């Protein structure tokens, strides 16, 4: 049934409604409608049986992978809605979030490079706006920076896509799979990877991430941490794994190097950050590297691992940023470590959620982040890349320190910062992310099983 | 041989445009005189027929001023762009049925690209740059405002213009201007099938050439000439060349799209029919200038976006339904 792109369709219809409602200035109603549309979309993605046949001449491949991505994107979207994007709270914000989620869903189901492009832009355009939505200088700067870099990245992607099309006369992965390796296609693939790795914030395409993460309103940062990565990961999985394009395997070693580089760079620089959003920005660089570990393995296991880690990372980042945002109080001020001082005594619940998120990001056992790393390590070791596995371990060790420093503040007893009570929305986000983080870390069996089926399915195409 | 034919056609077309610019201007002044119960230029030559020549010479020998703060390159570039865009469009408009000369079939147009209408729209859009850059480069408040206004106005009306042409494309099944005329030969002229788009097209055409009642960018009373306040000499004149050539061009386009181009009863040659029809529209231009007051800016924008655009959209949809379901 989702063979008919129902999740995407639902979202599109919802988007139309939200836009009109927002046009009338009823922001609150728009929010509710958007949430409803997101839930409906996720329900369609996860409950309706997968169509698992190419749609629109191979432009879309709605299968279980797309279901996973849909679910994650919706999660990010709901979090963003609940956190209330944008300090100015323009009524369009929910519509923008919805559009971005739609972009991620399109990426999840993309069956051709052209669809990937459309998805990429659908995801990026609203984000450019959302990032700048606070309309403070910082917001605007971040928005412009993101826009410029994003445009360049899309340019890389497009040119690569055009080269591939010029060589094989088609955009679809199904056709790409049938080709033998050719130099021009390789060049094209390289450019395509460049564009996609940018979205994952992989070194050397990472420059934007810390700035944008810091400069964006906190809810938007939280959204980006999960949704953009979900979309980019899905696209990379499709390009690398789905097609069996013989040349794709050649990229594995390079991707492995970039992964190691990103992990180490991201974690090392996360270590020295005071601003918590910037910290997450660097950790996003590292997380991109982790995701790339799974992709570099070029295996079912690697893709599963990437998806699992993505879910864990996204939840962790959302939880982390939510607490940071609430603690910072004023939306325009960047939340620093000091804002968390003594949180464990003032707001034990928030501290618990924050602790779980930070530990998950650091990869401490019994949180989702830990099993995500185990998953990735399995993929790397099974693919015969123990060096990469060691890089993952070393990166985790450095990253640990980065998350530890804010966590230390949470338990400091000398002086407690004033932290407001979280509003119902953020509180709900915190509860859900905490529970899911714990669930992923303690009882991952069903998820692993499900992911295994999802990944195996499209490899068998 | 082809090259020679092309050269001849280009020379003829440009000469025609320059001459007709001059005499359109003369005709306008004379007509305005009649409308306003006065004489208009009637001293230089018989009935003032040499007046344009005198004007041109005067302009040529005036001092060419460059405002102190102006951006010299852009300031000089702007009128060039205006004239270039105005002249450029006419290359794709067929002036008459293909002529047969010494066994050769010679189409009466300089160029006939497959999607000529798009080329015409594209080239005419370039004209905006001339006005905006002129306004910006002058470093004068009036000029800037005039330039910006003209940009806003022209692009707003261009949208409605584009939509109003959709119906014609559907009916003709081609964006080639020759084909469109030929289609009208088969199916009848389009103006009676597309009366509303015709009205919209002509109105927007008037606005595109910054003519009354849409001459806000120049608005002598408030903007002292608008974007060309700081210009003098031939550069000043060039904006007028552009404006009048534009009048001719959009009239030609209107005729081509809605009134069968060069088609007409056989007792006159096609080219003459074409020129006659253009003449009628130019008369309309002048008539409007003599009769109508200038619109306020907000009225103008409202008309473009909220009246003309939706109307032509709806009409285009109707046409689409008719064409697709026939």
């Amino acid at each position, binding site marked *: 049934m989702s063979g008919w792109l129902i999740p995407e369709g639902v979202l599109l219809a919802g988007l139309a409604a939200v836009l009109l409602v927002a046009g009338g200035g009823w922001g609150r109603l728009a929010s509710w409608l958007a949430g409803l549309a997101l839930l409906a979309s996720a329900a369609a993605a996860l409950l309706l049986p997968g169509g698992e046949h190419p749609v629109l001449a191979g432009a879309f491949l709605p299968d279980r992978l797309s279901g996973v991505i849909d679910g994650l994107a919706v999660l990010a979207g709901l979090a963003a809605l609940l956190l209330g994007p944008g300090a100015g709270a323009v009524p369009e914000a929910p519509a923008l979030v919805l559009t971005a989620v739609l972009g991620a869903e399109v990426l999840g189901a993309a069956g051709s490079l*052209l669809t990937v492009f459309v998805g990429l832009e659908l995801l990026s355009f609203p984000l450019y706006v959302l990032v700048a939505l606070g309309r403070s200088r910082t917001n605007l*700067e*971040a928005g412009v920076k993101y826009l410029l870099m994003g445009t*360049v990245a899309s*340019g890389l992607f*497009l040119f690569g896509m055009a*080269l591939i099309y010029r060589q094989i006369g088609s955009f679809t992965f199904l056709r790409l799979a049938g080709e033998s390796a050719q130099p021009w296609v390789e060049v094209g693939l390289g450019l395509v990877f460049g564009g996609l790795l940018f979205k994952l914030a992989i070194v050397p395409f990472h420059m934007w991430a810390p700035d944008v993460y810091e*400069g964006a309103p906190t809810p938007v940062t939280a959204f980006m941490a999960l949704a953009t990565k979900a979309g980019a990961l899905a696209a990379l999985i499709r390009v690398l794994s789905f097609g069996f394009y013989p040349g794709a395997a050649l990229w594995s070693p390079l991707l492995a190097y970039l992964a190691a580089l990103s992990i180490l760079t991201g974690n090392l620089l996360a270590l020295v950050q005071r601003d918590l959003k910037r910290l997450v920005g660097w950790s996003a660089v590292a997380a991109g590297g982790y995701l790339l570990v799974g992709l570099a393995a070029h295996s079912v296991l690697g893709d599963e691992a990437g998806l699992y880690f993505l879910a864990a990372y996204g939840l962790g980042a959302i939880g982390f940023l939510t607490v940071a945002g609430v603690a910072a109080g004023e939306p325009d001020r960047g939340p620093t470590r000091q804002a968390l001082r003594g949180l464990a005594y003032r707001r034990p619940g928030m501290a618990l959620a924050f602790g779980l998120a930070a530990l998950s990001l650091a990869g401490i056992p019994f949180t989702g982040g830990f099993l995500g790393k185990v998953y990735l390590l399995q993929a790397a070791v099974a693919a015969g890349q123990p060096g990469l596995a060691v890089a993952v371990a070393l990166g985790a060790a450095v990253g640990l320190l980065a998350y530890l420093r804010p966590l230390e503040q949470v338990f400091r007893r000398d002086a407690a910062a004033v932290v407001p009570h979280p509003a119902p929305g953020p509180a709900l986000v915190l509860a859900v992310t905490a529970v899911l983080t714990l669930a992923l870390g303690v009882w991952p069996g069903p998820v692993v099983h499900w992911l295994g089926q999802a990944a195996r399915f499209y490899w068998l195409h | 041989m082809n090259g020679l034919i092309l050269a001849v056609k280009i020379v003829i077309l440009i000469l025609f445009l320059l001459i007709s610019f001059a005499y359109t201007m003369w005709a306008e002044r004379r007509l305005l005189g009649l409308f306003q119960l006065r004489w208009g230029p009637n001293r230089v030559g018989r009935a003032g027929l040499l007046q344009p020549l005198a004007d041109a010479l005067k302009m040529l020998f005036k001092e060419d001023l460059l405002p102190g703060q102006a951006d010299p390159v852009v300031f000089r570039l702007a009128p060039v762009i205006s004239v270039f865009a105005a002249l450029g469009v006419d290359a794709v408009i067929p002036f008459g049925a293909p002529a047969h000369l010494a066994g050769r079939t010679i189409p009466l147009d300089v160029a006939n690209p497959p999607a000529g209408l798009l080329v015409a729209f594209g080239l005419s859009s370039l004209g905006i740059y001339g006005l905006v850059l002129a306004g910006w480069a002058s470093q004068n408040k009036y000029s800037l405002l005039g330039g910006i206004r003209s940009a806003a106005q022209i692009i707003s009306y261009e949208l409605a213009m584009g939509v109003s042409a959709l119906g014609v494309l559907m009916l003709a099944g081609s964006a080639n201007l020759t084909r469109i005329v030929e289609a009208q030969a088969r199916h009848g002229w389009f103006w009676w099938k597309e009366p509303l788009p015709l009205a919209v097209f002509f109105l927007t055409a008037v606005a595109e050439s910054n003519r009354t009642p849409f001459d806000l960018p120049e608005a002598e009373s408030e903007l002292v000439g608008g974007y060309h306040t700081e210009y003098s000499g031939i550069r000043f004149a060039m904006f007028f060349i552009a404006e009048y050539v534009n009048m001719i061009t959009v009239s030609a386009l209107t005729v081509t799209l809605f009134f069968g181009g060069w088609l007409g009863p056989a007792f006159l040659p096609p080219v003459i029919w074409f020129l006659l029809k253009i003449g009628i529209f130019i008369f309309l231009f002048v008539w409007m200038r003599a009769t109508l007051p200038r619109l306020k800016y907000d009225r103008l924008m409202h008309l473009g976006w909220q009246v003309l655009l939706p109307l032509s959209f709806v009409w285009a949809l109707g046409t689409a339904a008719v064409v697709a379901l026939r």
Partner: protein
Amino acid sequence: MSTGAVTLVAALLFAVGLAGVLVRRNPLVMFMAAEMMWNAAALVLVAASRHWGREGGQAAAFLVIAAAAAEVGIGLALIVATYQHRHRLDADVLKRLRG
């Protein structure tokens, strides 16, 4: 013109765009340079479409143009808003966020 020649031209355009982004400091100019990269891609798409005799490439080029238009809409809005904030356009001034 052959597809190869067009591709070469497009590659040059692409390189110019990329260089523009890397070298220039004015966001507006950088943005235009980046758009040039897009247009280079569109050019290749159209040429390849002719080469293969399939309309897919042209449709894609259309898509690219449409996306570019949307992007310009957003980009100009952001850049204008930034401009209003600081009355100067220079990437070096965008330094509030280190990076």
